[in-house]
């Protein structure tokens, strides 16, 4: 990729625990091109949210970061707080799982959709209001003018998430980071949000990083996927290829855990649980849960090696044995 908007290089985030410094994110690298949707998948505790927070400088105070995160050539991790603030919300926006964490319950939608626009872009009140109305129409809120004078509690969960996305889009960011944006929503509403994200990317060239455990969501919209386990990327590649022919046993296990068509086996759980911070097994972190683990897997962390064009996998068992 030549013109990537965001290039993350060997990003690590270490947290201080009772057993010393432990990596919650360990040497993670990926790129997002303009207008591209990148998905980050993994179970709870795999480090996917921490990765996103670190990019925005929102990781816990006291955590140590290393590596680089080049956004249009500037390293987000090395920026002064003030400089990061001018990028955060303005050029990179964040959408969270629960829209009520983004929306203030006591303020009208208008205030929430115009305040930061006026702050970041220095436009007049009327101009900010006009843009807010447009944005609400973009995210398909019925009666945008009426919505401006309403409060968050007057909307359903799906509508609130749309408003939170409108808020994130208000300053026309180039990159949207969405952490489980549809997890709490009904499938019908989820379909609407996914279509919205896809439209924003096509019509406005917005790049999106979607973080979710739901491979169905990523299959629908993501161009590229990163699968994380215990803080590391274990497989990375084009979505279609990665989901139809996974090369890492963990990716395959995630797929096999999904409910599938009637008649297929489906919903085969992954044995065991993900390791907790500070108790990550030596060698390949997945080996205790892996059906194909060998002695060598316990000895060294396998490198994220190229296994196809633009496809990398961190597993020494290649090709994987056929499914039983």
């Amino acid at each position, binding site marked *: 990729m030549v013109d990537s908007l965001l290039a993350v290089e060997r990003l690590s985030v270490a947290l201080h625990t009772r057993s010393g410094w432990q990596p919650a994110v360990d040497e993670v690298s990926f790129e997002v091109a303009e207008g591209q949707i990148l998905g980050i998948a993994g*179970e*709870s505790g795999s480090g996917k949210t921490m990765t996103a927070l670190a990019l925005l400088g929102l990781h816990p105070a006291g955590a140590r970061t290393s590596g680089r995160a080049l956004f249009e050539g500037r390293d987000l991790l090395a920026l002064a707080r003030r400089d990061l603030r001018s990028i955060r919300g303005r050029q990179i926006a964040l959408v969270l799982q629960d829209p009520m964490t983004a929306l203030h319950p006591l303020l009208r939608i208008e205030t929430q959709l115009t305040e930061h626009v006026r702050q970041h872009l220095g436009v007049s009140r009327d101009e900010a209001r006009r843009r807010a109305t447009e944005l609400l129409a973009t995210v398909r809120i*019925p009666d945008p003018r009426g919505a401006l004078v309403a409060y968050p509690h007057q909307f*359903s*969960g*799906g*509508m609130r998430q749309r408003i939170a996305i409108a808020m994130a889009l208000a300053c026309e960011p180039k990159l949207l980071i969405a952490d489980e944006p549809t997890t709490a929503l*009904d*499938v*019908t*509403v*989820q*379909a*609407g949000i*996914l*279509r919205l994200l*896809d439209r924003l990317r096509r019509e406005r060239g917005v790049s999106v990083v979607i973080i979710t*455990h*739901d*491979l*169905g*969501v990523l*299959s*629908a*919209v*993501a161009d590229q996927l990163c699968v994380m386990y215990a803080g590391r990327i274990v497989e990375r590649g084009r*979505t*279609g290829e990665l*989901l*139809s022919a996974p090369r890492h046993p963990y990716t395959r*296990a*995630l*797929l096999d*855990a*999904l*409910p*599938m068509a*009637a008649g297929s086996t*489906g*919903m*085969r*759980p*992954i044995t065991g*649980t993900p390791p907790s911070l500070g108790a990550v097994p030596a060698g390949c972190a997945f080996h205790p849960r892996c059906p194909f683990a060998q002695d060598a897997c316990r000895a060294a962390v396998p490198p994220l090696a190229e296994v196809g064009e633009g496809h990398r996998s961190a597993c020494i068992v290649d090709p994987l044995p056929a499914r039983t």
Partner: protein
Amino acid sequence: MDVLRLSGVTVAYPRRGAPPVRAVVDASFALEPGEIVGLVGESGCGKSTLGKAAVGLLPLASGTVTFQGRPLPPLGRGMRPPAFRPLQMVFQDPYSSLNPRRRVGEQIADGIRLGGHGSGRLTAEVGQLLERIGLPAAARQFPHEFSGGQRQRIAVARVLAARPACVVADEPLSALDSSAQAQVANLLASLVREMRMAMLFISHDLSVVRQIADRTVVMYLGTIVETGPTRQLWEDPQHPYTAALISAVPKVGGPAVLPAELPGEVPDPARPPGGCRFHPRCPIAEAACRLQEPGLLPAGPAREVACLVAQRRMAAMADPEAP
């Protein structure tokens, strides 16, 4: 004979200074032993209300719920009569349904005692249940020592301790990630088969229901719009709402396909649209749909649908001579 039967169940929430909101209107279905019935619909459709009414947690405005042939009294302050203890519920959030300050083994032992099965072998029984859910060494531990999926399995063990004949599970998987979902779903499904329990499985996730339910009941805005064997309903939905729900589910693998959007919002249940409740969002609505509320009528063996258009189509197929 059916274990749990709901007949014409209507549940209304009282409001100050306004007529009550009918969250569930005239719902009827039954569960047989060893059967899993999935109850699906968007949030706000009344599926959780119906689930609570089915175990007696909410009073009925009209209709009846019978458990093993006896009418279910609403849950009061006193102890529930022993005859109804085999009717149990699994809640959504295992973080709040387990007591954080008591050991796992003690909480499961409570279930055994409440079920009236207390014997001198409590510890042994607790051990067996924990073994069954795959956490044999959990008895001395506290809930916070477990992950979400493990906690939900513990909550299931506690329900099983009462030796239920019927379990209502309200979104038991939605707080869990995919792998933990698979674990808990498999556990519930195999327990239903082994113990010949009946289970009402309430979920907004159609793909999970498709995987484990024998029959599926689809709700929209407080009414049942379609019921039938899960596979048939999925492959050949009769109601346009069922079809819309199914096409909104993202598919994994293969070429990327954006799931289909269902325009509009679920209306306010306090002011449901006249005629068919789904008509403002329905892609095939006709003039008659605005005026006439369709009843839930048989539509082939073991199927029912509440849609005028589908009912007419079926009548035409049954009698090709009719105009």
